[in-house]
Protein backbone atom coordinates (compact mmCIF):
# COMPACT_ATOMS: atom_id res chain seq x y z
CA UNK A 1 0.00 0.00 0.00
CA UNK A 2 1.56 3.24 -1.08
CA UNK A 3 -0.50 5.44 1.26
CA UNK A 4 1.02 3.95 4.43
CA UNK A 5 4.52 4.34 3.03
CA UNK A 6 4.04 8.06 2.58
CA UNK A 7 2.68 8.46 6.12
CA UNK A 8 5.74 7.08 7.97
CA UNK A 9 8.11 9.88 8.90
CA UNK A 10 11.54 9.95 7.25
CA UNK A 11 14.32 8.57 9.41
CA UNK A 12 15.96 11.21 11.66
CA UNK A 13 19.55 12.00 10.83
CA UNK A 14 22.05 11.24 13.60
CA UNK A 15 25.42 12.99 13.53
CA UNK A 16 28.15 14.04 15.95
CA UNK A 17 27.69 17.81 16.43
CA UNK A 18 30.56 20.19 15.66
CA UNK A 19 32.61 21.06 18.78
CA UNK A 20 33.16 24.77 19.25
CA UNK A 21 36.54 24.83 21.04
CA UNK A 22 36.85 28.60 20.66
CA UNK A 23 33.78 29.09 22.83
CA UNK A 24 35.23 27.05 25.66
CA UNK A 25 38.55 28.89 25.58
CA UNK A 26 36.88 32.31 25.56
CA UNK A 27 34.55 31.27 28.39
CA UNK A 28 37.52 30.36 30.58
CA UNK A 29 39.27 33.67 29.81
CA UNK A 30 36.13 35.64 30.65
CA UNK A 31 35.59 33.75 33.91
CA UNK A 32 39.12 34.54 35.04
CA UNK A 33 38.72 38.22 34.22
CA UNK A 34 35.37 38.44 36.03
CA UNK A 35 36.90 36.78 39.07
CA UNK A 36 39.77 39.26 39.12
CA UNK A 37 37.35 42.19 38.81
CA UNK A 38 35.12 40.94 41.63
CA UNK A 39 38.17 40.41 43.83
CA UNK A 40 39.28 44.00 43.14
CA UNK A 41 35.84 45.35 43.97
CA UNK A 42 35.70 43.59 47.34
CA UNK A 43 38.92 45.37 48.26
CA UNK A 44 37.75 48.75 46.87
CA UNK A 45 36.78 51.41 49.36
CA UNK A 46 33.12 51.68 48.35
CA UNK A 47 30.12 51.53 50.63
CA UNK A 48 27.59 49.61 48.54
CA UNK A 49 25.00 50.22 51.21
CA UNK A 50 25.19 53.96 50.48
CA UNK A 51 24.91 53.35 46.74
CA UNK A 52 21.80 51.29 47.31
CA UNK A 53 20.35 53.86 49.66
CA UNK A 54 20.78 56.75 47.23
CA UNK A 55 19.54 54.71 44.26
CA UNK A 56 16.01 55.19 45.55
CA UNK A 57 16.63 58.55 47.22
CA UNK A 58 13.97 61.09 46.05
CA UNK A 59 16.49 63.62 44.69
CA UNK A 60 18.20 60.95 42.59
CA UNK A 61 14.93 59.45 41.37
CA UNK A 62 13.69 62.89 40.42
CA UNK A 63 16.98 63.49 38.61
CA UNK A 64 16.53 60.27 36.67
CA UNK A 65 13.01 61.41 35.78
CA UNK A 66 14.37 64.72 34.47
CA UNK A 67 17.06 62.89 32.49
CA UNK A 68 14.33 60.87 30.84
CA UNK A 69 12.16 63.95 30.25
CA UNK A 70 14.87 66.10 28.68
CA UNK A 71 16.13 63.18 26.59
CA UNK A 72 12.68 62.43 25.17
CA UNK A 73 11.92 66.08 24.44
CA UNK A 74 15.34 66.87 22.97
CA UNK A 75 15.24 63.73 20.81
CA UNK A 76 11.74 64.66 19.61
CA UNK A 77 12.95 68.14 18.72
CA UNK A 78 15.97 66.60 17.00
CA UNK A 79 13.82 64.23 14.93
CA UNK A 80 11.46 67.02 13.86
CA UNK A 81 14.35 69.30 12.88
CA UNK A 82 16.16 66.39 11.22
CA UNK A 83 13.19 65.56 8.98
CA UNK A 84 12.69 69.21 8.02
CA UNK A 85 16.38 69.77 7.26
CA UNK A 86 16.71 66.49 5.35
CA UNK A 87 13.71 67.39 3.18
CA UNK A 88 15.12 70.89 2.68
CA UNK A 89 18.42 69.43 1.54
CA UNK A 90 16.87 66.98 -0.91
CA UNK A 91 14.26 69.36 -2.29
CA UNK A 92 16.34 70.68 -5.19
CA UNK A 93 15.67 74.25 -4.01
CA UNK A 94 19.15 75.84 -3.79
CA UNK A 95 18.17 78.27 -1.00
CA UNK A 96 16.68 75.73 1.41
CA UNK A 97 19.44 73.33 0.42
CA UNK A 98 22.13 75.82 1.44
CA UNK A 99 20.34 76.63 4.71
CA UNK A 100 20.14 72.93 5.54
CA UNK A 101 23.79 72.41 4.68
CA UNK A 102 24.81 75.33 6.89
CA UNK A 103 22.73 74.05 9.81
CA UNK A 104 24.38 70.63 9.70
CA UNK A 105 27.83 72.15 9.20
CA UNK A 106 27.50 74.52 12.15
CA UNK A 107 25.82 72.35 14.76
CA UNK A 108 27.79 69.22 13.96
CA UNK A 109 30.99 71.22 13.83
CA UNK A 110 30.87 72.66 17.34
CA UNK A 111 30.83 70.81 20.69
CA UNK A 112 27.40 70.34 22.21
CA UNK A 113 28.80 71.44 25.59
CA UNK A 114 29.73 74.77 24.03
CA UNK A 115 26.29 75.08 22.42
CA UNK A 116 24.61 74.48 25.78
CA UNK A 117 26.69 77.27 27.33
CA UNK A 118 25.86 79.64 24.46
CA UNK A 119 22.11 79.07 24.86
CA UNK A 120 22.34 79.43 28.62
CA UNK A 121 24.26 82.69 28.34
CA UNK A 122 22.20 84.11 25.50
CA UNK A 123 21.24 87.03 27.72
CA UNK A 124 24.71 88.51 27.19
CA UNK A 125 24.04 88.61 23.47
CA UNK A 126 20.38 89.64 23.47
CA UNK A 127 19.17 91.04 26.83
CA UNK A 128 15.54 90.95 25.68
CA UNK A 129 13.77 88.63 23.28
CA UNK A 130 10.74 89.80 21.35
CA UNK A 131 8.27 87.39 19.80
CA UNK A 132 6.25 88.93 17.00
CA UNK A 133 2.65 89.22 18.11
CA UNK A 134 3.36 87.91 21.61
CA UNK A 135 5.33 90.79 23.10
CA UNK A 136 8.81 90.59 24.57
CA UNK A 137 10.52 89.17 27.62
CA UNK A 138 13.83 89.32 29.42
CA UNK A 139 16.12 86.65 27.99
CA UNK A 140 17.25 85.55 31.44
CA UNK A 141 13.64 84.78 32.32
CA UNK A 142 13.01 82.77 29.16
CA UNK A 143 16.32 80.92 29.06
CA UNK A 144 15.82 78.73 32.11
CA UNK A 145 18.15 75.75 32.57
CA UNK A 146 15.39 73.57 31.11
CA UNK A 147 14.98 75.68 27.97
CA UNK A 148 18.73 75.99 27.47
CA UNK A 149 19.14 72.23 27.86
CA UNK A 150 16.29 71.49 25.48
CA UNK A 151 17.53 73.87 22.78
CA UNK A 152 21.17 72.91 23.19
CA UNK A 153 20.60 69.17 23.08
CA UNK A 154 17.67 69.19 20.61
CA UNK A 155 19.15 71.50 17.99
CA UNK A 156 22.46 69.69 18.11
CA UNK A 157 20.66 66.38 17.73
CA UNK A 158 18.76 67.79 14.74
CA UNK A 159 22.02 68.03 12.80
CA UNK A 160 22.76 64.33 13.31
CA UNK A 161 19.16 63.30 12.67
CA UNK A 162 19.18 65.30 9.42
CA UNK A 163 21.99 63.13 8.11
CA UNK A 164 20.27 59.95 9.26
CA UNK A 165 16.97 60.94 7.65
CA UNK A 166 18.74 61.96 4.46
CA UNK A 167 20.46 58.59 4.22
CA UNK A 168 17.02 57.02 4.77
CA UNK A 169 15.39 59.06 2.00
CA UNK A 170 18.23 58.22 -0.38
CA UNK A 171 17.86 54.52 0.38
CA UNK A 172 14.38 54.41 -1.16
CA UNK A 173 14.38 53.30 -4.79
CA UNK A 174 13.84 56.14 -7.26
CA UNK A 175 11.17 54.06 -8.99
CA UNK A 176 8.97 54.58 -5.94
CA UNK A 177 9.03 58.35 -6.40
CA UNK A 178 8.39 57.95 -10.10
CA UNK A 179 5.45 55.62 -9.62
CA UNK A 180 3.93 57.99 -7.06
CA UNK A 181 4.45 60.99 -9.32
CA UNK A 182 2.91 59.13 -12.23
CA UNK A 183 -0.19 58.65 -10.09
CA UNK A 184 -0.43 62.41 -9.67
CA UNK A 185 0.88 62.63 -6.11
CA UNK A 186 2.44 65.92 -5.06
CA UNK A 187 5.93 66.03 -3.58
CA UNK A 188 4.67 66.45 -0.04
CA UNK A 189 2.17 63.64 -0.33
CA UNK A 190 4.60 61.17 -1.83
CA UNK A 191 7.21 62.00 0.81
CA UNK A 192 4.73 61.44 3.60
CA UNK A 193 2.96 58.38 2.26
CA UNK A 194 5.49 56.59 0.07
CA UNK A 195 9.10 57.59 0.70
CA UNK A 196 9.26 58.30 4.46
CA UNK A 197 7.50 55.09 5.54
CA UNK A 198 10.00 53.09 3.48
CA UNK A 199 12.91 55.18 4.72
CA UNK A 200 11.93 54.33 8.32
CA UNK A 201 13.62 50.94 8.04
CA UNK A 202 16.93 52.72 7.53
CA UNK A 203 16.15 55.62 9.89
CA UNK A 204 14.89 53.76 12.96
CA UNK A 205 17.96 51.72 14.02
CA UNK A 206 20.41 54.65 14.15
CA UNK A 207 17.72 56.82 15.74
CA UNK A 208 17.44 54.29 18.55
CA UNK A 209 21.19 54.56 19.03
CA UNK A 210 20.92 58.34 19.00
CA UNK A 211 18.30 58.25 21.73
CA UNK A 212 20.32 55.92 23.92
CA UNK A 213 23.24 58.28 23.38
CA UNK A 214 20.98 61.19 24.29
CA UNK A 215 20.12 59.57 27.63
CA UNK A 216 23.79 59.80 28.49
CA UNK A 217 24.66 63.06 26.69
CA UNK A 218 21.88 64.80 28.61
CA UNK A 219 24.24 64.66 31.61
CA UNK A 220 26.05 67.57 29.93
CA UNK A 221 23.01 69.68 30.77
CA UNK A 222 24.27 69.68 34.35
CA UNK A 223 26.65 72.43 33.19
CA UNK A 224 23.67 74.77 32.67
CA UNK A 225 22.25 73.81 36.08
CA UNK A 226 19.46 71.62 34.71
CA UNK A 227 18.67 69.26 37.60
CA UNK A 228 19.06 65.93 35.83
CA UNK A 229 20.57 62.76 37.23
CA UNK A 230 24.25 63.72 37.25
CA UNK A 231 23.60 67.16 38.76
CA UNK A 232 21.45 65.53 41.44
CA UNK A 233 24.27 63.12 42.29
CA UNK A 234 26.81 65.95 42.32
CA UNK A 235 24.58 68.06 44.55
CA UNK A 236 24.50 65.28 47.14
CA UNK A 237 28.15 64.23 47.04
CA UNK A 238 29.42 67.79 47.42
CA UNK A 239 27.71 67.65 50.82
CA UNK A 240 28.36 64.11 52.03
CA UNK A 241 31.59 63.53 50.06
CA UNK A 242 30.52 59.97 49.16
CA UNK A 243 31.53 60.66 45.60
CA UNK A 244 31.98 57.12 44.24
CA UNK A 245 28.87 55.79 45.96
CA UNK A 246 26.70 58.47 44.34
CA UNK A 247 28.33 58.16 40.94
CA UNK A 248 27.52 54.44 41.08
CA UNK A 249 23.90 55.18 42.02
CA UNK A 250 23.65 57.43 38.98
CA UNK A 251 25.41 54.86 36.79
CA UNK A 252 22.86 52.25 37.83
CA UNK A 253 20.04 54.55 36.79
CA UNK A 254 21.66 55.22 33.42
CA UNK A 255 21.98 51.47 32.91
CA UNK A 256 18.32 50.96 33.80
CA UNK A 257 17.20 53.66 31.36
CA UNK A 258 19.42 52.55 28.49
CA UNK A 259 18.45 48.88 28.99
CA UNK A 260 14.75 49.63 28.96
CA UNK A 261 15.07 51.61 25.75
CA UNK A 262 17.30 49.06 24.08
CA UNK A 263 14.47 46.59 24.50
CA UNK A 264 12.06 49.14 23.05
CA UNK A 265 14.42 49.64 20.13
CA UNK A 266 14.34 45.93 19.30
CA UNK A 267 10.56 45.91 18.99
CA UNK A 268 10.50 49.16 17.05
CA UNK A 269 13.02 47.90 14.50
CA UNK A 270 11.06 44.73 14.15
CA UNK A 271 7.90 46.70 13.47
CA UNK A 272 9.52 48.77 10.72
CA UNK A 273 11.22 45.92 8.90
CA UNK A 274 7.77 44.56 8.04
CA UNK A 275 7.33 44.07 4.31
CA UNK A 276 11.09 44.29 3.74
CA UNK A 277 12.18 40.99 5.23
CA UNK A 278 10.35 37.71 5.14
CA UNK A 279 11.92 36.40 8.32
CA UNK A 280 11.42 38.83 11.19
CA UNK A 281 13.83 38.52 14.12
CA UNK A 282 12.25 36.42 16.87
CA UNK A 283 11.12 38.18 20.02
CA UNK A 284 12.50 36.69 23.27
CA UNK A 285 9.04 35.33 24.02
CA UNK A 286 8.94 33.53 20.68
CA UNK A 287 12.41 32.16 21.29
CA UNK A 288 11.34 30.69 24.64
CA UNK A 289 8.25 29.18 23.06
CA UNK A 290 10.28 27.68 20.23
CA UNK A 291 12.83 26.22 22.67
CA UNK A 292 10.07 24.67 24.75
CA UNK A 293 8.48 23.22 21.64
CA UNK A 294 11.79 21.74 20.54
CA UNK A 295 12.58 20.13 23.89
CA UNK A 296 9.09 18.68 23.98
CA UNK A 297 9.58 17.19 20.55
CA UNK A 298 12.96 15.79 21.52
CA UNK A 299 11.29 13.88 24.33
Amino acid at each position, binding site marked *: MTSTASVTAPERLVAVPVRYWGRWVSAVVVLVLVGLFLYAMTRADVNWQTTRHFFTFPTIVRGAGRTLLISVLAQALGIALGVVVAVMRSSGNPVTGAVGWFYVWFFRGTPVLLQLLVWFNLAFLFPTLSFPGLGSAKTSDVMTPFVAALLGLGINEGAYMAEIVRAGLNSVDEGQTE*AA*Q*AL*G*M*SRGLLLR*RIVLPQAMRVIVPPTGNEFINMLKTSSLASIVQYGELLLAAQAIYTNNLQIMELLFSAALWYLVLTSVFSIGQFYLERRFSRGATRNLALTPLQRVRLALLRSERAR
Partner: protein
Amino acid sequence: MSAPMVHAEKVHKSFGKVEVLKGIDLTVELGEVCCLLGPSGSGKSTFLRCINHLEKVDAGRLSVDGELVGYRQSGEKLYELKEKETSSKRAEIGMVFQRFNLFPHMTALGNIVEAPIRVKGLGKAEAAERARALLDRVGLSDKVDAYPAQLSGGQQQRVAIARALAMQPKLMLFDEPTSALDPELVGEVLDVMRGLAADGMTMLVVTHEMGFARDVGDTVVFMDGGVVVESGAPHDVINNPQQERTRAFLGKVL
Protein backbone atom coordinates in the same frame (compact mmCIF):
# COMPACT_ATOMS: atom_id res chain seq x y z
CA MET B 1 -12.81 65.38 -35.24
CA SER B 2 -11.20 65.32 -31.79
CA ALA B 3 -7.54 66.07 -31.15
CA PRO B 4 -5.21 63.06 -31.12
CA MET B 5 -4.48 61.62 -27.69
CA VAL B 6 -0.73 62.01 -28.16
CA HIS B 7 0.79 64.31 -30.71
CA ALA B 8 4.53 64.82 -31.00
CA GLU B 9 6.19 67.16 -33.48
CA LYS B 10 9.97 67.36 -33.69
CA VAL B 11 10.38 66.59 -29.99
CA HIS B 12 13.94 67.02 -28.74
CA LYS B 13 15.41 66.07 -25.40
CA SER B 14 19.00 66.22 -24.17
CA PHE B 15 20.67 65.15 -20.97
CA GLY B 16 23.55 67.56 -20.66
CA LYS B 17 25.43 67.33 -23.96
CA VAL B 18 23.87 64.02 -24.99
CA GLU B 19 20.89 64.45 -27.29
CA VAL B 20 18.60 61.49 -26.68
CA LEU B 21 15.52 62.50 -28.67
CA LYS B 22 16.35 64.14 -31.98
CA GLY B 23 13.02 65.19 -33.35
CA ILE B 24 10.32 62.62 -32.67
CA ASP B 25 7.15 62.77 -34.76
CA LEU B 26 4.36 60.52 -33.60
CA THR B 27 0.60 60.51 -33.27
CA VAL B 28 -1.65 58.24 -31.24
CA GLU B 29 -5.38 58.63 -31.86
CA LEU B 30 -8.07 58.12 -29.26
CA GLY B 31 -8.66 54.42 -28.64
CA GLU B 32 -5.58 53.39 -30.55
CA VAL B 33 -2.87 50.99 -29.41
CA CYS B 34 0.56 52.11 -30.52
CA CYS B 35 3.54 49.80 -30.02
CA LEU B 36 6.97 51.37 -29.80
CA LEU B 37 9.92 49.21 -30.84
CA GLY B 38 13.59 49.95 -30.95
CA PRO B 39 17.03 48.94 -29.73
CA SER B 40 18.25 49.70 -26.22
CA GLY B 41 19.23 53.32 -25.74
CA SER B 42 17.12 54.57 -28.65
CA GLY B 43 15.14 56.85 -26.32
CA LYS B 44 11.87 54.94 -25.92
CA SER B 45 11.70 55.29 -22.15
CA THR B 46 12.74 58.91 -22.32
CA PHE B 47 9.93 59.63 -24.76
CA LEU B 48 7.32 57.96 -22.52
CA ARG B 49 8.65 59.90 -19.54
CA CYS B 50 8.29 63.14 -21.49
CA ILE B 51 4.65 62.37 -22.19
CA ASN B 52 4.05 61.88 -18.46
CA HIS B 53 5.89 65.07 -17.44
CA LEU B 54 8.66 63.10 -15.79
CA GLU B 55 11.11 64.84 -18.14
CA LYS B 56 10.89 68.26 -19.74
CA VAL B 57 10.91 68.57 -23.51
CA ASP B 58 13.66 70.88 -24.80
CA ALA B 59 12.29 71.69 -28.22
CA GLY B 60 9.36 70.82 -30.44
CA ARG B 61 5.74 70.33 -29.48
CA LEU B 62 4.27 67.54 -27.45
CA SER B 63 0.60 67.49 -26.58
CA VAL B 64 -1.72 65.07 -24.83
CA ASP B 65 -5.42 65.24 -25.56
CA GLY B 66 -4.92 68.60 -27.28
CA GLU B 67 -3.08 70.18 -24.35
CA LEU B 68 0.61 71.04 -24.39
CA VAL B 69 2.77 68.94 -22.09
CA GLY B 70 4.70 70.83 -19.43
CA TYR B 71 3.72 74.29 -20.60
CA ARG B 72 0.72 76.53 -20.85
CA GLN B 73 0.38 78.69 -23.90
CA SER B 74 -0.98 82.17 -23.57
CA GLY B 75 -0.83 84.14 -26.80
CA GLU B 76 2.66 83.68 -28.19
CA LYS B 77 4.26 82.97 -24.82
CA LEU B 78 4.83 79.65 -23.08
CA TYR B 79 4.64 79.38 -19.31
CA GLU B 80 6.08 76.46 -17.37
CA LEU B 81 3.44 74.55 -15.45
CA LYS B 82 3.43 74.70 -11.66
CA GLU B 83 3.97 71.52 -9.68
CA LYS B 84 0.28 71.26 -8.89
CA GLU B 85 -0.78 71.57 -12.53
CA THR B 86 1.80 68.98 -13.56
CA SER B 87 0.53 66.59 -10.88
CA SER B 88 -3.06 66.91 -12.00
CA LYS B 89 -2.04 66.20 -15.61
CA ARG B 90 -0.08 63.14 -14.53
CA ALA B 91 -3.12 61.89 -12.66
CA GLU B 92 -4.91 61.56 -16.01
CA ILE B 93 -2.20 59.36 -17.53
CA GLY B 94 -1.51 55.85 -16.28
CA MET B 95 2.01 54.49 -16.36
CA VAL B 96 3.28 50.94 -15.95
CA PHE B 97 6.98 50.36 -15.36
CA GLN B 98 9.35 47.57 -16.28
CA ARG B 99 10.19 47.01 -12.60
CA PHE B 100 6.55 47.27 -11.37
CA ASN B 101 7.41 49.84 -8.66
CA LEU B 102 4.62 48.73 -6.37
CA PHE B 103 4.71 50.32 -2.92
CA PRO B 104 6.18 47.50 -0.80
CA HIS B 105 4.74 48.72 2.50
CA MET B 106 1.16 48.54 1.25
CA THR B 107 -1.04 45.58 0.36
CA ALA B 108 -2.32 45.10 -3.17
CA LEU B 109 -5.52 46.88 -2.18
CA GLY B 110 -3.56 49.64 -0.40
CA ASN B 111 -1.47 50.21 -3.53
CA ILE B 112 -4.58 50.63 -5.64
CA VAL B 113 -6.67 52.86 -3.36
CA GLU B 114 -3.83 55.20 -2.34
CA ALA B 115 -3.97 57.68 -5.23
CA PRO B 116 -7.76 57.68 -5.75
CA ILE B 117 -8.23 58.56 -2.05
CA ARG B 118 -5.34 60.98 -1.56
CA VAL B 119 -5.19 62.59 -4.98
CA LYS B 120 -8.77 62.45 -6.22
CA GLY B 121 -10.43 62.64 -2.82
CA LEU B 122 -12.52 59.53 -3.38
CA GLY B 123 -14.26 58.03 -0.34
CA LYS B 124 -12.51 55.08 1.28
CA ALA B 125 -15.37 52.63 0.83
CA GLU B 126 -15.91 53.56 -2.79
CA ALA B 127 -12.20 53.40 -3.57
CA ALA B 128 -11.93 49.96 -1.97
CA GLU B 129 -14.94 48.72 -3.90
CA ARG B 130 -13.47 49.93 -7.18
CA ALA B 131 -10.09 48.46 -6.29
CA ARG B 132 -11.65 45.05 -5.67
CA ALA B 133 -13.38 45.23 -9.04
CA LEU B 134 -10.07 46.09 -10.70
CA LEU B 135 -8.25 43.25 -8.94
CA ASP B 136 -10.99 40.98 -10.17
CA ARG B 137 -10.48 42.30 -13.68
CA VAL B 138 -6.76 41.48 -13.63
CA GLY B 139 -7.55 38.07 -12.14
CA LEU B 140 -6.25 38.67 -8.62
CA SER B 141 -9.37 38.90 -6.50
CA ASP B 142 -7.77 36.47 -4.00
CA LYS B 143 -4.69 38.67 -3.48
CA VAL B 144 -6.40 41.71 -1.99
CA ASP B 145 -4.41 41.63 1.25
CA ALA B 146 -1.11 40.34 -0.14
CA TYR B 147 2.01 42.49 0.08
CA PRO B 148 4.07 42.89 -3.11
CA ALA B 149 6.87 40.68 -1.69
CA GLN B 150 4.33 37.85 -1.47
CA LEU B 151 3.39 38.09 -5.16
CA SER B 152 5.07 36.73 -8.26
CA GLY B 153 6.41 39.16 -10.85
CA GLY B 154 3.44 38.65 -13.12
CA GLN B 155 1.02 39.21 -10.25
CA GLN B 156 2.89 42.34 -9.19
CA GLN B 157 2.71 43.75 -12.68
CA ARG B 158 -1.02 43.04 -12.86
CA VAL B 159 -1.52 44.87 -9.56
CA ALA B 160 0.53 47.74 -11.01
CA ILE B 161 -1.80 47.87 -14.02
CA ALA B 162 -4.83 47.87 -11.71
CA ARG B 163 -3.23 50.67 -9.69
CA ALA B 164 -2.83 52.80 -12.82
CA LEU B 165 -6.38 52.02 -13.98
CA ALA B 166 -7.80 53.07 -10.62
CA MET B 167 -7.15 56.69 -11.57
CA GLN B 168 -9.37 56.20 -14.62
CA PRO B 169 -6.70 57.45 -17.02
CA LYS B 170 -7.46 58.53 -20.56
CA LEU B 171 -4.11 57.19 -21.73
CA MET B 172 -1.96 54.27 -20.55
CA LEU B 173 1.81 54.20 -21.01
CA PHE B 174 3.60 50.86 -20.73
CA ASP B 175 7.41 50.78 -20.55
CA GLU B 176 8.50 47.23 -21.31
CA PRO B 177 5.93 45.79 -18.92
CA THR B 178 6.98 42.18 -19.46
CA SER B 179 10.75 42.35 -19.87
CA ALA B 180 11.47 41.76 -16.16
CA LEU B 181 9.25 38.67 -16.10
CA ASP B 182 10.04 34.99 -16.37
CA PRO B 183 8.84 33.75 -19.79
CA GLU B 184 5.94 31.75 -18.36
CA LEU B 185 4.57 34.86 -16.63
CA VAL B 186 4.61 37.11 -19.68
CA GLY B 187 1.35 35.74 -21.02
CA GLU B 188 -0.79 36.64 -18.01
CA VAL B 189 0.27 40.29 -18.21
CA LEU B 190 -0.18 40.49 -21.97
CA ASP B 191 -3.67 38.99 -21.57
CA VAL B 192 -4.64 41.81 -19.23
CA MET B 193 -3.30 44.33 -21.73
CA ARG B 194 -5.20 42.67 -24.56
CA GLY B 195 -8.37 43.02 -22.51
CA LEU B 196 -7.66 46.70 -21.98
CA ALA B 197 -7.12 47.26 -25.68
CA ALA B 198 -10.37 45.45 -26.45
CA ASP B 199 -12.16 47.80 -24.05
CA GLY B 200 -10.96 50.74 -26.11
CA MET B 201 -8.18 52.10 -23.89
CA THR B 202 -5.68 54.33 -25.66
CA MET B 203 -2.29 52.74 -25.12
CA LEU B 204 1.32 53.51 -25.94
CA VAL B 205 3.35 50.36 -25.35
CA VAL B 206 7.12 49.97 -25.45
CA THR B 207 7.65 46.26 -25.98
CA HIS B 208 9.81 43.58 -27.48
CA GLU B 209 6.84 41.20 -27.73
CA MET B 210 6.39 41.06 -31.49
CA GLY B 211 3.36 38.80 -31.21
CA PHE B 212 1.58 41.35 -29.06
CA ALA B 213 2.55 44.22 -31.37
CA ARG B 214 1.28 42.32 -34.37
CA ASP B 215 -2.01 41.14 -32.85
CA VAL B 216 -3.01 44.07 -30.66
CA GLY B 217 -1.20 47.11 -32.08
CA ASP B 218 -3.06 49.44 -34.39
CA THR B 219 0.23 51.04 -35.30
CA VAL B 220 3.84 50.08 -34.78
CA VAL B 221 6.57 52.68 -34.51
CA PHE B 222 10.23 51.77 -34.85
CA MET B 223 12.66 54.14 -33.14
CA ASP B 224 16.42 54.23 -33.38
CA GLY B 225 18.98 56.83 -32.35
CA GLY B 226 16.36 59.26 -31.07
CA VAL B 227 14.25 59.43 -34.22
CA VAL B 228 11.30 57.53 -35.65
CA VAL B 229 12.71 55.41 -38.44
CA GLU B 230 9.53 53.78 -39.64
CA SER B 231 5.92 53.54 -38.61
CA GLY B 232 2.68 52.12 -39.91
CA ALA B 233 0.34 49.16 -39.59
CA PRO B 234 1.91 46.25 -37.69
CA HIS B 235 1.70 43.94 -40.65
CA ASP B 236 3.59 46.36 -42.88
CA VAL B 237 6.31 47.35 -40.44
CA ILE B 238 6.98 43.91 -38.99
CA ASN B 239 6.51 41.71 -42.03
CA ASN B 240 7.64 44.10 -44.71
CA PRO B 241 9.97 46.76 -43.32
CA GLN B 242 11.12 49.41 -45.78
CA GLN B 243 14.14 50.69 -43.88
CA GLU B 244 17.44 48.84 -43.54
CA ARG B 245 17.70 49.70 -39.81
CA THR B 246 14.24 48.26 -39.11
CA ARG B 247 15.13 45.10 -40.97
CA ALA B 248 18.37 44.70 -39.02
CA PHE B 249 16.58 45.16 -35.67
CA LEU B 250 13.72 42.82 -36.51
CA GLY B 251 16.19 40.25 -37.73
CA LYS B 252 17.65 40.18 -34.23
CA VAL B 253 14.44 40.03 -32.18
CA LEU B 254 12.20 37.86 -34.31
